[in-house]
């Protein structure tokens, strides 16, 4: 049996669950809205991040999306029904990850370009150039996708939306905000910090825009590998 039917089923599950559609809408709305607010109060030192500041809020919605999509399988015996239809657990989890990644990437890229257009309009003369801007928009889409996948992998390990969000949200809001200001340290390698380098006009840490996204991708891959291992090994 091929991968496509399992992916099709997982895609139906995502598009028919309103909280998931709400989370995707929130990625767009939160990123654009908070970015637009931030452009009103910018000192002009980092025009690109002034445009994409709202991603700090949008990524929380992306995390909620990835978490909810996976955690919904761990309630009421849903996973048992799912795995009785697709007993190859590795294939099922890959299908789930793909069904999360594709809409997250689509919405993430849309969010990136809408944010860029809004930001350029708001900043006028001090706006970032197009080449920086497009890099930021694509980076925004990739970063949001990777955050959703990172959360998805963690949710498969923890098997609960509450547990996953209890780990990730404080981590993003507190640890990363506080430690993240100490640039040039190990904090640069935290999943959300690393991916966001792509959204800055300049950077002075060890990571550049693409190497930063690669580090985020490694985090996501590690979380998904742990999640896949957990799904395969544990009784459903």
């Amino acid at each position, binding site marked *: *049996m091929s991968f496509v*039917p*399992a992916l*099709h*089923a*997982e895609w*139906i*599950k995502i598009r*028919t*669950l*309103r*909280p998931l559609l709400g989370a995707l809408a929130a990625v767009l709305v939160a990123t654009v809205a908070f970015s637009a607010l931030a452009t009103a109060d910018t000192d002009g030192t980092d025009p690109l991040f002034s445009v994409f500041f709202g991603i700090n809020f949008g990524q929380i919605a992306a995390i909620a999306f990835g978490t909810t999509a996976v955690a*919904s399988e761990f*309630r*009421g*015996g*849903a996973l*048992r*029904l*799912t*795995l*009785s*239809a*697709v*007993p*190859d657990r590795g294939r099922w989890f890959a299908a789930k990850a793909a069904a999360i990644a594709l809409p997250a990437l689509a919405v993430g890229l849309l969010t990136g370009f809408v944010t860029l257009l809004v930001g350029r309009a708001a900043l006028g003369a001090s706006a970032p150039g197009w080449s920086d801007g497009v890099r930021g928009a694509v980076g925004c889409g990739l970063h949001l996708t990777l955050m959703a996948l990172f959360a998805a992998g963690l949710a498969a390990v923890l098997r609960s939306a509450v547990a996953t969000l209890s780990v990730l949200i404080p981590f993003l809001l507190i640890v990363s905000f506080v430690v993240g200001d100490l640039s040039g340290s190990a904090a640069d390698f935290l999943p959300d910090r690393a991916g966001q380098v792509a959204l800055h006009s300049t950077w002075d840490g060890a990571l550049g825009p693409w190497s930063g996204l690669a580090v985020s991708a490694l985090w996501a891959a590690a979380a998904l590998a742990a999640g896949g291992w957990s799904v395969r090994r544990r*009784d*459903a």
Partner: protein
Amino acid sequence: MTSIDVRNLTKEHGGRRAVDRLTFRVRPGRVTGFLGPNGAGKSTTLRLVLGLERPTAGTATIGGHPYPRLREPLRRVGALLDAGAAHGSRTARDHLLALAASNRLPARRVDAVLAETGLAPVARRRVRTYSLGMRQRLGIAAALLGDPEVVLLDEPANGLDPEGIVWIRALLRRLAAEGRTVLVSSHLMGETAAFADHLLILGRGRLLADTPVREFIHARVRPHVRVRTTDPAALGALLARHGLDASRDEDGTWTVRHARVDDLGRLMSEAGVPVLELSAREATLEEAYLDLTAAEAEFTAQPQET
């Protein structure tokens, strides 16, 4: 013909044996009742058969193959395990459409099972608005989605209203008559007796009986006769004279064991004892089951500290 074969199946949960060296075969063309008290290991056994849990030892196969090896398994095997498996925010139809897509089943199968389970009028409502009985029907619809040869249902009558219980009985009988292999777990004796041809009885993870329902009841419970009369003294004397094992209940009814209505009626008529009531009492599955578990307890009971 597809049988379920379980051999020496054992599952330990944290040192406790939930399923203990089970060996049985579930055959097609009849309804097999999987009976036992809560916690006897019925659900664990079903999860092991479906490959959802890994056995500590032993094997479970369907038509000779371990379940996880089946291609598009919903076309071969349908199972109801948890009535809560459908997400409350999804509609019943969307829930089934996702399941159908995973095994490349056409959308018309979704509409067919919704109609069959009586959910068609509410198919586009969110599952959150469903009663337990409706969720149970949705779980059964999911089990029937792939028109499978093997149907496994865990406590399907849970939460069903009386109409639903009559419906599920007829459904199970029909599935078996169509030659399918039907395994239905329950902790309710009366319910199981109403639909099962064959019984697997489980107690503390072990197989206590694997037998046709009729045979099981007849081997375990002797029939008896209920008698009521206006002249208890004459009846008592009559029964004593013929050496019949009888006792008088508080409401004045007599219970005569190891007797037949035909014999007792003639005796009473000849002796001129007035008859108000004379009826054979069918032994029930419940009595047979209690007899079995009482016998089992004698063997398994550990001496208590004194």
